[in-house]
């Protein structure tokens, strides 16, 4: 397998959510992930990209290809410099939202990936990192 280069995609307008989904799909197909794994990760990417726009006022998605302990995977890092999240535990709860959505984005995405990490600082921004291993 040829080594894939990390890439960064701008997430500013709603069409970017579509581009993020398509990029993640293409990368996962190239890496040989199963259809179910692809669907889960693409859905998580869609939720997190929308959060980046709706709550983070726009940002970026970085795609990386981690390899450790003999396994490889795909990692997505969503970064914004928005208002940040005051209470992360509350934000992870299903049904909690400060917007108009269903409040499933963060908690739902967490269930669709293998590793989930969130860091946020008020007035500095939010970084959500999700990884799916092969």
């Amino acid at each position: 397998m040829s080594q894939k280069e990390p890439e960064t995609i701008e997430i500013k307008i709603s069409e970017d959510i579509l581009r993020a989904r398509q990029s993640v799909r293409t990368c996962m197909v190239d890496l040989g992930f199963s259809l179910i794994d692809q669907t889960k990760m693409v859905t998580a990417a869609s939720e997190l990209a929308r959060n980046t726009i709706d709550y983070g006022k726009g940002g970026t998605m970085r795609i990386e290809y981690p390899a450790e302990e003999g396994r490889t995977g795909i990692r997505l890092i969503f970064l914004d410099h928005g208002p940040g999240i005051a209470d992360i535990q509350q934000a992870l709860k299903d049904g909690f939202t400060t917007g108009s959505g269903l409040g499933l984005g963060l908690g739902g995405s967490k269930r669709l990936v293998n590793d989930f990490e969130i860091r946020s600082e008020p007035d500095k921004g939010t970084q959500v990192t999700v990884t799916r291993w092969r």
Partner: protein
Amino acid sequence: MDKIPILKLGNILLVTIQIDMHDQLAIALQDDLTARIVSAHAKGVLIDISSLEMVDSFIGRMLGNIAAMSQALGAQTVVVGMRPAVAITIVELGLPMENIQTALNVERGVEKLQRAMEKYEKGTPR
């Protein structure tokens, strides 16, 4: 801008979503469909999502909205053709689907829709 076509078959409106929708397109479909239910005097709406490779909470919410809006206008909605990988994913995502009637394919969807339409007509005082 792209538009998702709405076909009329008797008193049913058929919508086949064949492209990965961006948010505005999903909202436009919601608006078009409600207007069309009224202008076409439709009693049923069939939404075929067999081409959709992914349903996230935004699209899920749109499907729920369409079902609720149709109901308010006296039309029943059935969503058909969900792919297995999509079904597995939306359950893990936690998407509430209890307000949405579903069927395996278009044929079964039409049957389900006809039964729902008959039941609705009987239950409606004239």
